[in-house]
């Protein structure tokens, strides 16, 4: 009885988690990859670890602390690189290290053993609560609404900021809000995949999608499919093989990416051969 309840719980959390993670990968991931913000997002992810540490130390929800740290670090990187003229990659490196150091210091200062720490670093479906799932669900709705309603504005600002300034006075508003949403999305997905692996969960699916299409809406759709397939398969494999779920998902996604890459190569060679045949036939 207990075992089947446990399994039911695992399946529900797993499926909902996979669904919401794939929405995150579709919207946030495509934005991160198209804007070349992968390293920036890595900085946000690791900076948020500082919030997790402070959360533990203060006895508050570590995800809340991580969210505050994630958003502040995203805006901080923006501020340092734009206003203080520090190179963006250096600003990211500083925030990255600051967050990790803060996290480690506060976890060390926290009395007793931090049992969930490993789950924050590498993710674990076993420690994901329904609260986490609901938060991810709300985040998914926010992402869908924001990226659908302001689809063109966000796209055109990303493509050519200078031109965008000729038609909207809100370029900075859109940048800051979108970056903050990305930071929140990353932090909420940390529960699933962990600090170390969350970025791959969000950025490998769009890279799979881009092998097949260069159209933004299609990249979003394909990313969601790829993420869902990879996450769901990752769960199953991790469950039956008894290996960590975050790592299994990311590993599965990389394997899908490699297979997809091979498939496009073979297709390309096939098309080239066809062209050659056409040419020789015409002669």
């Amino acid at each position, binding site marked *: 009885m207990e075992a089947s309840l446990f399994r039911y719980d695992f399946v529900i959390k797993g499926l909902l988690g996979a669904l919401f993670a794939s929405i995150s990968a579709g919207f946030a991931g495509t934005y991160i990859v*198209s*804007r*070349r913000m992968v390293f920036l997002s890595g900085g946000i992810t690791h900076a948020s670890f500082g919030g997790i540490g402070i959360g533990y130390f203060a006895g508050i929800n570590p995800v809340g602390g991580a969210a505050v740290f994630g958003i502040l670090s995203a805006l901080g990187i923006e501020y340092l690189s734009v206003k203080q003229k520090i190179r963006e990659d250096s600003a990211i490196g500083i925030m990255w290290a600051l967050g990790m150091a803060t996290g480690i210091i506060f976890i060390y200062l926290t009395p007793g053993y931090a049992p969930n720490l490993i789950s924050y670093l590498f993710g674990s479906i076993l420690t994901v609560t329904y609260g986490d799932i609901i938060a991810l669900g709300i985040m998914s709705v926010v992402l869908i609404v924001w990226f659908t*309603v*302001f689809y*063109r*504005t966000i*796209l*055109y600002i*990303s*493509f*050519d900021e*200078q*031109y*965008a*300034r*000729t*038609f*909207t006075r*809100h370029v900075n508003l859109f940048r800051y809000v979108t970056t903050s949403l990305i930071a929140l999305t990353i932090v909420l997905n940390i529960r699933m995949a962990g600090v170390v692996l969350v970025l791959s969960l969000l950025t490998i699916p769009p890279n799979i999608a*881009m092998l097949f299409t*260069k*159209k*933004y809406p299609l*990249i979003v759709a394909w990313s969601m499919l790829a993420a869902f397939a990879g996450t769901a398969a990752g769960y199953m494999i991790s469950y039956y093989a008894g290996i960590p779920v975050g790592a299994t998902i990311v590993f599965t996604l990389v394997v899908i990416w490699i297979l997809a890459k091979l498939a496009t190569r073979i297709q390309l060679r096939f098309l080239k051969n066809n062209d050659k045949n056409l040419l020789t036939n015409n002669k």
Partner: protein
Amino acid sequence: MPKPLLELISVSVSYGEFTALENVVLKVMENDFIGIIGPNGGGKTTLLKAILGLVPIRGKIEFSPELQGGKKIGYLPQISTGDHSFPLTVTDVVLSGLMLHKGFVPVMTAADKARAATVIDELGLRQLADSPLSGLSGGQLQRVFLGRAVIGDPKLLLLDEPGSFVDSNFEHDFYEKLRILNKRMAILMVSHDIGTISSHVRSFACVNRNLHYHPSSEISNEQLQEYGCPIQLITHGEVPHTVLKKH
């Protein structure tokens, strides 16, 4: 005397300590075709940005009602701006020229998309309408950006170095296209290549912090010196004279 389309009244622009433009006075009339020339860093691009409201100015810029407070200005920035590998199609980019006419929540209607298709057709890009930008040549990109600048049917067209990436096959077409557009809109064109543009523009504005207006498409080295515009006329033989018919 007809009212100017656009009037700059002692406009100055500073970036911190550096004064890019000082007391610039310029009147742009309907159907003007003005070549904006001057040395690098002389303030040519800043002049366009001032008109577009992209940089804070001192002084005053007056729009005629026809410009609808700036909504009827088309802009083609230097081709180096923007991320050309960003996943957007040619149609998407051309449509972005309509954003000026949209509210806070922009929606592109079927009519907008039909308009984009017409513009793309006129630019000879029909086959590429659905293609991503990343595969286009410099000349094709420049045409896409021209489409973006003119889709909103502007009364004033601002072009920043449009010749710099245009391949020679397309150069003739491009200026021919501008000549046709000039019948329904005034054009301000920044260029460092006076030799090429002098056969297309009707007048010059030399910008080197100050602006000197030269009401003819024929300009000599001496006059350029006099205007404080130290640029060399690189031409073979004589400076080409205007080939456009005067109206």
